């Protein structure tokens, strides 16, 4: 019978899942991010599928996307949700008799999530067993619950203590912006929209619609093919001059570290921001106190030695530090338990009340409902407010 492993963060759910998988090894594993979801041995989507495909089909294929159309793409260039769907597709074509999923389904849009859960729930009939960790679900019907209760206090966080200083964020204008990846379809085509400070905006759209791409454009990681950005009506090109407006918390926290230890990361970011006269730079002591609120007590902590859940929380540090007037959270609740999600929603509300602008992406409707926000819909290469 399929097993649902429940419990708060740091209760040992991931360890329990790995023990379950090892007992039935070889078994398929879908971890929270690409390095633990995909094999890493394939240069293309077609090769990823070829590695896992068994000689004879042993169960119906789970094919939520048209993988043939992206067969030549490199797996890491897929969006987070698409990578999870690819992993599930590979499992469905393989001859593994067991699959374990560690919070990865939290990255899926509602329809894909329902489809994936439906497929996994039919495991008994299809000859496979499944174990699942998911913070947004109660135990699904037909699954066997396994409740873990203990919780380590080493990384306990206290988001209630966080209150960023008041701020007057600029109005963001995006005008006639177009963007596409080389050889790909239009992600944005002559897009216009305007973001007001003191508001929270939720970007919505299916997996692969371009939500993370929009974040990267606003932060200057990507540059548009045409069009541009304005701040209070003045032209702003972060891809040329450097990002000084948007504090970004990435979907995968490991995409935002600038050093090996927290101290190194803070020093490098502070040195970069010190060049900008408009930025009120927080002191190291302030940042260390904020890190402690997020569960990391020492700035000498090696970032990559932290548990993933703790790294994810620490990724909120700069958006919550108040150094930059706009904050962007990409799937901030991934891997976070109910209590932490509610506390984060409260802090984001505080940010907007203090004058910051917030843009966030989440497939977690319950979390979004806790934040007063305006939806932004990404569809057909346009942004609709």
């Amino acid at each position, binding site marked *: 019978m399929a097993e649902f492993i429940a419990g708060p963060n740091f209760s040992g759910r991931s360890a329990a899942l*790995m023990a379950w*998988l*090892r007992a039935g*090894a*070889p*078994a*398929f*594993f879908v*971890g929270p*991010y690409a*390095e*633990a*979801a995909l*094999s*890493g*041995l*394939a*240069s*293309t989507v077609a*090769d990823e599928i*070829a*590695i896992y*495909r*068994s*000689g004879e089909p042993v169960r119906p294929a789970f094919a939520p996307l048209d993988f043939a159309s992206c*067969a*030549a793409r*490199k797996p*890491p260039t897929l969006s987070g949700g698409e990578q999870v769907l690819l992993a599930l597709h590979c499992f469905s074509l393989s001859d*593994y008799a067991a699959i374990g999923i560690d919070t990865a389904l939290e990255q899926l849009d509602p329809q894909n999530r329902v489809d994936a859960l439906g497929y996994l729930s039919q495991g008994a009939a299809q000859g496979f067993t499944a174990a699942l960790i998911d913070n947004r679900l109660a135990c699904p019907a037909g699954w066997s619950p396994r409740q873990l209760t203990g919780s380590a206090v080493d990384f306990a966080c206290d988001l209630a203590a966080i209150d960023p200083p008041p701020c007057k964020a600029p109005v963001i204008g995006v005008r006639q912006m177009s963007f596409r990846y080389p050889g790909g379809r239009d992600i944005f085509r002559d897009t216009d929209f305007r973001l007001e400070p003191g508001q929270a905006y939720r970007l919505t759209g299916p997996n692969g619609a371009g939500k993370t791409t929009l974040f990267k454009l606003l*932060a*200057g*990681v*990507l*540059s548009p093919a045409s069009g541009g950005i304005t701040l209070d009506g003045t032209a702003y090109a*972060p*891809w*040329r001059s*450097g*990002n*000084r407006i*948007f504090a970004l918390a*990435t979907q*995968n926290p*490991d*995409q*935002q*570290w*600038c*050093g*090996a230890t927290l101290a190194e990361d803070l020093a*490098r*970011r502070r*040195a*970069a*921001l010190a*060049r*900008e006269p408009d930025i009120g730079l927080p002191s190291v002591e302030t940042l260390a106190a904020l890190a402690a609120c997020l569960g990391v007590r020492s700035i000498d902590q090696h970032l*990559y030695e932290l548990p993933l859940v703790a790294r994810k929380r620490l990724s909120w540090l*700069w958006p919550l530090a108040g150094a930059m007037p706009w904050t962007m959270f990409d799937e901030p609740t991934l891997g976070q338990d109910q209590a932490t999600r509610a506390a984060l929603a409260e802090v984001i509300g505080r940010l907007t009340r203090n004058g910051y602008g917030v843009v966030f992406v989440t497939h977690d409707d319950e979390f979004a409902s806790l934040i007063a926000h305006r939806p932004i819909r990404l569809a057909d290469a346009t942004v609709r407010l």
Partner: protein
Amino acid sequence: MTPNGAVIFALAVIAGAALARDAITLGIVLTITLIFGLGSRRRIWGALAWSAGIVLPLAAFMGAVWIGIVGRAPAEIAASLEGSRAAAAAYVAVICVRLFIVAFAIQAAFLHFAGWTPLRFVGGLAAPPVVKKLLVLTLSLIETILQAVDRARTALIAAGIITRNPSWRNLRHGWILVQTVWLTVVTIAIGRTRDKWPVEDTLARLDGALATSMAPRLGAADCGWIALVVAGAAIAWGLR
């Protein structure tokens, strides 16, 4: 054409370019390589430009040193002759054409397999399974490094430490990018090897994936291309 034929052809061309000592022989090897590229029935301009791009920095450096500063060819120096800049230019040209042929031969070989995935190409090679696995792992490492570069750039640009477009800031902080890339490579590798690979026995699946190719070891087209190289070598030998 089969992957084995392409590898044999490319190695033969590379050997021919390395052994060629005069412009005529090099011209023959270059012509054969160009015909091989055109034989892929794909546009070869990109491959030509890429190969030229690799050679140009070397050509500029060697031109400055041998033509501009030394002013004589190495053979003239060895023979204690007065020498000339024309001889030095000919020496530089031979070296650069050789490198161009090597770069283009590899590009042209891949043009013949433009619709293939890397796994299919490696699977089609007549090599021991362990060699094929090592090739796949090498490609995987290259992809991991590229992925790490993308991640590290995202982190440093979003933090305002570097910029997307070229800037002095990027030159000053390039070492941070290098350090971040390697940290990221290690993190990605650990993420795979700690949980995913052991529990799935992922590497063992490569045996099946690489063994599925039923292509013949050498085809008629391979023999035709190899015969062309042999004919070229015979012509070059006869002209000596």
